Structure formats: C-alpha cells, structure tokens
C-alpha cells in the first residue's frame, strides 16, 4: 500500500500538478478574502473565515474532480492496471493507497490556505475555535468528494469524462440543499427530509458555526466508506465482466 501511496504522491508532486492546484486554490481564496476585507464596515471591522470557506466550496467543486480524475482512468489508459492487479497487492490496498495520496494533496492545498488566518492573526484578532471547526468541516467535505471523484474515475478510461461526471455529481450534492427547500418539495415532508439528509452543504454550515455534530461526522464517514467500497466492487466487477 505504501508504495502505491508514494507513487501517487510522486505523480502529483514531481509534476507541477499539485503546485498548480494549490496555486489555483490560493488564488480563489485570495479573491474571497479580498471581498471579505472590502466589505468591512465601521465600526465592527469583523469578518468570518467560515463564510469564506462556504463560498470557496462552490469553486472547489471544480478542483476536486481535476485532482481525482486520473486516479484510475489513467491506469486503464496506459495499461498499467495489469501491473497493479498482477502484483501481490490487494485491490483494497490499491484503493486506500490512492485515496490517502489524494487526501495528502488536499491537505497540502488546505495548508496553503492557512496563510490567510495567519495574516489575519498578525494584524488583528482571530476566533480560533470557530476556525478549527471550519477546517475540520472543510476537510471532511473534501475527503468525501475525493472518494466520489475516485469512484467516478474507476468507471471510465477517459479522465476528462471522469472529471465532468464528478462535477455533475458534486453539483447535485450542492443543489439538493436548495432543491429540498423549494415549495414543491416542502409539500411532501418525508421526501423533503429524505433529500435534505443528502445535502452536504448544511452539514458544513454546522461545522462553520463551530458545531461538531456526531451525525455530520457519521454522514461524511459513511459516504466515504460507501464510495470506497463501491470503488472496490466496480474494479472487481469490470475485471469479471470485461469483453
């Protein structure tokens, strides 16, 4: 597992990929940060990082699939899947190795964003508790979507298609929140609560307000486990069905 993890990290960090991604992320964050600074009003002079994170999430939907699109699609494209499957390494270890590598790049990107709170801390005061909660929420959110993106990547050998399908799924997750609160859906309370349960965004909102709720953690953890298990099944299934 470690060798796969290491190889994936190499493919991110020995190429400009991880750095370009992080730079793009920092750029988006900078725009949001500037907006927040620009909106400061007398006399409170206050803005919240969770709000910035909340906005960044929308753009992040484009970044995560680009990060994960190559995970399995490229293995198939280059015929290197054979190498992994015929080596004495289980499929589960392959998936976990790749997942952890993607998470590591994600953490690297998040670490880049720490620049802004530090900058704020040096020039003002920072509410640390809320910030940590927002970071935890942001991490959980990203970890879930990385699992989704990897799953999509195992469906196709075209990484661009993998990225687009990944984005579609993430948009659905994003808009299901608003959709579940439309008047039409509100007529059916059971359906409404069912749909609302899948919405990832309000869960992040709780984190950003400084709540760490067990139900949210369970939601993200179970989504990750489901996606990774499905990933395992998808890979095995394709081998059996091939041709």
């Amino acid at each position, binding site marked *: 597992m470690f060798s796969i993890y290491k190889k994936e990290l190499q493919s991110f960090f020995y190429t400009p990929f991880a750095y370009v991604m992080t730079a793009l992320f920092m750029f988006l964050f900078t725009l949001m940060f500037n907006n927040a600074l620009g909106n400061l009003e007398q006399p409170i002079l206050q803005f919240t990082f969770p709000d910035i994170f909340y906005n960044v999430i929308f753009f992040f939907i484009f970044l995560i699939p680009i990060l994960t699109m190559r995970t399995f699609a490229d293995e198939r494209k280059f015929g290197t899947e054979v190498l992994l499957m015929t080596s004495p390494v289980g499929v589960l270890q392959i998936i976990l190795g790749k997942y952890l590598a993607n998470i590591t790049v994600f953490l690297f990107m998040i670490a880049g964003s720490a620049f802004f709170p530090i900058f704020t801390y040096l020039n003002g005061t920072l509410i640390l508790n809320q910030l940590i909660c927002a970071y935890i929420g942001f991490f959980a959110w990203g970890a879930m979507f990385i699992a989704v993106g990897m799953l999509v990547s195992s469906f196709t050998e075209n990484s661009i298609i993998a990225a687009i399908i990944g984005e579609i799924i993430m948009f659905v997750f994003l808009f299901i929140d608003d959709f579940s609160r439309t008047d039409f859906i509100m007529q059916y309370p059971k359906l409404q609560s069912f749909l609302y349960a899948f919405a990832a965004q309000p869960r992040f909102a709780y984190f950003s307000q400084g709540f760490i709720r067990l139900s949210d953690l369970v939601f993200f953890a179970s989504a990750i486990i489901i996606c990774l298990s499905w990933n395992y099944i998808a890979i*095995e299934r394709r081998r059996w069905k091939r041709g």
Partner: protein
Amino acid sequence: MITIEKLTKYYGSNRAVNNISFTINDNEILGFLGPNGAGKSTTMNMIAGYLPMTAGKVTIFGSDITKEPVAAKKNIGYLPEIPPVYPDMRVTEYLSFCAGLKRIKFSERKDEIARVMKLLKIEDVQHKLIKNLSKGYKQRVGFAQALLGNPKFLILDEPTVGLDPNQVIEVRNIIKDLKKDHSVIFSSHILSEVSAVCDRVVIINKGDIKAIDTIENLEKTLGGNLTLHIKVKGDRTKTSNIIELTEGVQEIISIDAEGNDFFSFAVKLKEGAGDDTKNAIMSELIKHNIQISEIFTEKPDLEAVFVDMINKSSDKHGLQDLLDELGPATESESSEETDTEDEKEDDK
C-alpha cells in the same frame, strides 16, 4: 510446477479460450504459439491472475491463483503485451515503485534494481522519463519490472516485439539464461523465435490447443520428408538419372543451373529416408566421376509445420462434437451463472 487445468474463457457468448490444459515444468521454457487473436494474451492474463477465468484452474507452485492470489502472485513476473509503464516516471522511480509492489525488502531494493537494469542493459536510460524512451527501451523496462524480485515463474507476452534484431538476440539469450532457475511461458506468433528458445511448444488457435510437444517431435510427426540438396559439376541428365534411380528418392523438385557446369538439385526424399539415401547417391555420383561440391539434407520447414497445424481442420466428427458446435449458447449461459456467483463471492 505450474498446472493449467481445463481453462476456459468466454467474453459474453464469445469463446476466447476453450478448455485448455497443460503444465509448465520447473526450469522449462514453454513456447506459446499461435496467430494473432488465438487467445494467447487472454490465457496469459488468466494465468497471471489479471482476468478471472470462466472455468478451470491455474495452480502456481501449489497456490491456486483465484483462491490464494497473493501467495500465487508472489511467484509471478508478468510482462504483458503492452509494457505496463507510467509515462511520467523515470526508469529508476518506476522500478523502485514496482519493487515496492512486489514487496521486496527496502534494504535489498537498490541492488535488485541495479541487477535487472544491468541484465537488460537499460542503465544508460535510468534517469530518463519513460515517455521519452523508444519502443524497444519501454519493452525492456517492462521486462525488467517482471524480473524484479527474481520470481520463479515468468509470463512473457511477446517480449521481443518492437526490438531491433540485436536486442532480440540479447533478450532471447536472457530468457535462455533464466531457464536455470525459472519456469517461463513465452508467447509469440513468430515460430523461429519459439524454436530458438523453447523446450516445448503449445500451439493454440481460436482458443483450442492444436499441439503440445517438443519442437523435434513436431517436426518428426508433422514435417514429413527431408529435402536433399546436391550441387554437382558434371552432366545434368546423367546426374538426374542417378538420383532418380536411387532408393529412397521420391522426386526431384528443382534443378538450377549455376554456370560453369554447376547444377543444384533439390530432391524430395521418401518418408523415413535419410543418410542412407544420401550416401548411396554420393557413391553413385563418385562412381560416375561427377564432382560433388555440396550435399546436405534439410529438415522440413518449421513455418510450414506451423501453418499446417493452424489450418488443420478439426478431426472431430463425432456426434458430441456436432452438439458442441450447436451448443455454445447454452454453455455461455451457464458460464455467466458461474460468473455472477463468483462475483457475489468477491463482493463479500
């Protein structure tokens, strides 16, 4: 020893490999010969544990590839048809990744990588990105990967494709050297290659085994008759009369004039005829004062044997065979059932 028992593979209702069985002994190079699309790669993928089989069993040094995949795969070095290399990695990075995959101890990795690079003469490209290498080098990097960790069983799917003639000879020699302590299965659609390297050959066409034997036996059983080539200086009619009257000669295939009274004869001998006929002709010619400048017998053309094998129509004409031909639809259904069952097992 590696045993392959009743291996069958269906792609949907399309039968790619049909009920093939053979064994690969220790320290043996087995050639796996067949035209393109004969099912060679499918079979090799199944032996290596990449593709699951529809039916049958592959045992590698006592471990079943489907039941104990990790134990079985530890003994396998596999070079697929397309070398499984990552274009964005450097050669050493790639090999070190593969060494990790094969669970070679960290302390031994460096030496092991150096060993395989030396063996395949890829040291001069070790710091290059794989995408910048030529086809031949990529092929050799893929081969190096298969040799990492010195697995006892090597599966080589057309290892010499894309190499230049010098490299082909080098790779063949490497394979011959490997025989000392490895079992090798080696596929090719080029017969001369197989006959140069292998101890035994399995000939496969359209998923069926056509023959399993040593090269010599194949020549004997299928090759038919020897051809005698004679080059003489002297009278042409007299020589051909002598040859035709000698016992063991079937016919004169060709006579070519080569200037200055030299003639070349190609003579087809009767079945079983050989050195005795050759000696008889020689003494007759000498008796008649005809100078022989060259005389040798030639084995039947292996290529012809191969083509013959492949095109040989199936000898089966029994009722069961007719039923078999009618029955693939039902067979495929049952195979799909086993597929899904196995899948369920997998899912668990």
